[in-house]
Structure formats: C-alpha cells, structure tokens
C-alpha cells in the first residue's frame, strides 16, 4: 500500500505543471528529444548499411544518373528559374517577422493592467493595418496575377 502510494506520488510529482519552472528543464527535454530523433534517423541507416547490397551491377554507369524517366538529362538543374517564387518569399518575410511580434501582444492582451478599455484594440488595429499594407501593395503590383508574360522587344 505504502509502495503504491509512493509510486503514484512519484508519477504525479514528475508531471506537476509549475509555471515558474526554469527553462533549463525545457531545454533538457528538447535536447534529449533532438538526440532521440537523431538516433531514430540514424538507426535505420545502420540497418541499411548492414542489409543492403554494397554494389549493384552498374550498367553503362546508369546508377549515377539523375532520374528523368530514362532520358539522358540535358544540362544542369541548377539554373535560374521563375522570379515569382522570390516575390512570394519576400512578402512572407515582411509578414512573418511582424506576425511574430503579435504573439507577445496576444499574451498580454486584456490581461492584468491591460484589461478593459479600447486603447489596446486601437493599437493592434494600427499595427495590423500597417502590416496589411504589404499585402495591399503586392496585390496592386500584380504579384498574384499569373498572366503569361510576353516580351516583344528582347
């Protein structure tokens, strides 16, 4: 009976969610899980190393070739490609950094000394309004139009 009680206290003690707990514990867990995940990734490769054939028949040096459904690849793949992706990435950059600032705002919003009153809402409104200008600008500039662009005088 005594032993069982201690076992349950042991289980509960580990899982008490204490808001003041130091972040060292969090880091310890995350680090351990990082190495656990690393082990989970490397373990199968060890099995592959032990199980797989070391060298297959290499007919006409085809195993080193890129997969293009049997065709001989023409030219390198590392070339320049559509700038559209870059524009989307730029917009993301403008947005994502700003969005991250909203997390602390959301945590403090309507809590403690900020409770009640419309001041916080107006501030958030201004912030999100300016943030949205990035989207409006890109929209007006025609980033979202995927028209075929024809260049006559090249």
């Amino acid at each position: 009976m005594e032993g069982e009680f201690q076992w349950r206290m042991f289980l509960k003690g580990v899982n008490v969610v204490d808001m003041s707990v130091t972040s060292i514990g969090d880091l310890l867990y995350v680090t351990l899980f990082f190495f656990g995940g690393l082990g989970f990734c490397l373990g199968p490769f060890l099995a592959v190393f032990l199980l797989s054939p070391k060298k297959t028949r290499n007919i006409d040096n085809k195993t080193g070739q890129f997969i293009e459904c049997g065709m001989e690849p023409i030219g390198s793949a590392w070339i320049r490609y559509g700038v559209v992706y870059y524009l989307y990435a730029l917009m993301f950059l403008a947005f994502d950094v700003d969005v991250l600032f909203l997390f602390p705002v959301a945590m403090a919003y309507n809590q403690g000394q900020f409770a009640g009153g419309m001041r916080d809402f107006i501030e958030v409104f201004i912030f999100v309004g300016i943030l949205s200008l990035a989207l409006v600008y890109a929209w007006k500039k025609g980033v979202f139009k995927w028209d075929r662009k024809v260049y006559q005088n090249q």
Partner: protein
Amino acid sequence: MDINLVYMVLFLAGIIGFAALNAAYLVWVERKGAARIQRRTGPSEVGFAGLLQPLADGAKLMSKQILFPDGIDKPLFMLAPMFAMIPAVMILVTIPFGPVGFGPFADFMLVAREMNIGLLMIFAFASVNVMALLLGGWSSKNKYAVISAARAVSQDIAYEIPMILIAITIVMTTGSMHLSTIVESQAGGFWNWNWLPLQGNLFGPVTFIIFFICSLAETNRAPFDLGEAESELIAGFHTEYSSMGFGLFFMGEYANIVIGAALTTILFLGGWLSPLPASIPFIGAPSVVWFLLKMYLLIWTVVLIRWTYPRVTLWSLLNLAWKIMIPFALVNLLGSAALIKILPMLGL
C-alpha cells in the same frame, strides 16, 4: 526540479514508438482507404487484411541500396531527410495527449514536458520542415526536384501565415500559449470549444476550417501536394532518394500529419475533454481516448480528402492563401480583438 531521467527516456521511447507506429499504420489506412474509394486493390496479401504490409515495406526499404547521383551536393543531400524527421519528434515533446482517464493512473497526464511557450515552440520547429523540402530538392540536382522545392517552399510559407494568425487569435482569447491551459479553457461541453465563437473567436467555425486546410497544405497533402505531384514531377523533392532516405521523408510526412491533427484537436476541438459536461459520469470524464478519437477522425478526413479531390493548380493554391485566407485571418484577428474588449463592456 522535477526532472527524472528514467521518465524522460520512457517518454522518448514512447513518443518515437508512437510516431513510428502511426507512420507505418497510417500508410496502411491510406492505402486501404484509397482501395475502397477509388476501386483499387489495397494491401491484402501480407498478413490478415494486409496488416503486416507496413513491416514488409520497412524491411524492403532497409534492404535497398542508397544511391547518390553524380555531382550532387552530398552533405545537404544526406542532411535533408533528417530535417524532415527530427523536428517532428521534437514537436511531440510538448503535445499533451491528456490524462489516461481510467484505471489506477486516471490523473496521469500523457505529456513529456509541458512548456509555457508550447504553441510558439511547435510553430518554430514546424517551419524547419520547409528546410527539409528545400535542401532535399535543391541538393538532388534533378530538374523535377528543384521545381518541386521551389513550389513546396512557396506553398509552405504561404500557408504558415494564416495558420499562425489563427493561432494568435486563440492565444488572445485564452491568454496563454500553454497547450493544457488552452484545452482546459474549453471545458464544459462541445459548445464551449473554440470552433464556436462563444469564447471570443469571432468567426469560429471558419477559422477552424482554415486552420485545418492550412495543416493539410503545410504537410503537402493532396489536394495541395504540388510539391510531389506524381503525374508531373515524378516524386518531387524526394525523386533522387532511395532506401531509407525516402523512408525518412515518408515517416516525417506522416508524423507531421499526426501533429497537425493533434494541434487542431487541441486548439479547436477541446483536446482530451469530453463533448459532454464533466458532471455526466463516465462519458463526461476527460480522457486520452477522446483525444485520440478526435485526432484520428481528423486524420481520416485528411485521407478522405486526398482520394476524392483533384489537385489544384499552383497559382490558385498560392492565391487562395494570399488573397483569401490571410486577409480573412487578419479580419478575424481584429474582430476577435474587438469582441474581447467589447464583451466585458456589455457585461457578458
């Protein structure tokens, strides 16, 4: 300090086992589902109803040779599959699956480590997945893989924003990023869950659907699987991966589906809480069973969507995020912020 090494290792083993088991058997569920929906032949030969098929697949993958094409960026090529899998394991540290709910350890919370910044940490590690797609596609030096990497990255970053904006709305209404606190704030029956606007989330049901769609798009699932569109890009960013390199990408994808469904459950569907008030005996008790029920229901929806809808085009995919979802998420954020302030003024 409540750190216990035995405990950490037990949870680590449990979570890795959970991730591996889910990856293996969700493939089985998916292939069975595809067979039922599209009149194909699913796995049926290996074991009863093909139940041993995932094991056979795993053994086959492990006994294949790893191929490196000539002239690739080898260090990045080897690093990319790990970028797909490791963050998924690290995210599962902080996802609370709820109390056991029955038996001698009814109050025992199934979570490795609760964190104050749990939600932020999940988004931080979830965005590492983009790196896996980019590095895998780019370092392969295959034209299809490079196209796929560009597509997948632009898709993932586009859908990350409405997802985070909606999560911010939830944080605002709950005042916490602690996942257990978010779940507990939804207590008292399904009408208190965040998918209804009673908690202050103005367009509740729509945000729930947007969040779910975003989690689909983030995991590169059909109809948003532009990154690995089989009919146009062979296999997308993992075209050149053989053996376990491919296997890790695959496991990472399924682990991310589990995480997406779990997160949707926690944020919108009341996590481990019962849909009925806790005053009702037995059925009303919070339990991990409810959590898994909701999570697997969402995952089954994901499978159902994959086999019923055709793939979208790239521009409609990106524009859906930038033109519809992000403006809507912003409006929802502002509306909810106003609602939180106005409701106390009206005495509600």
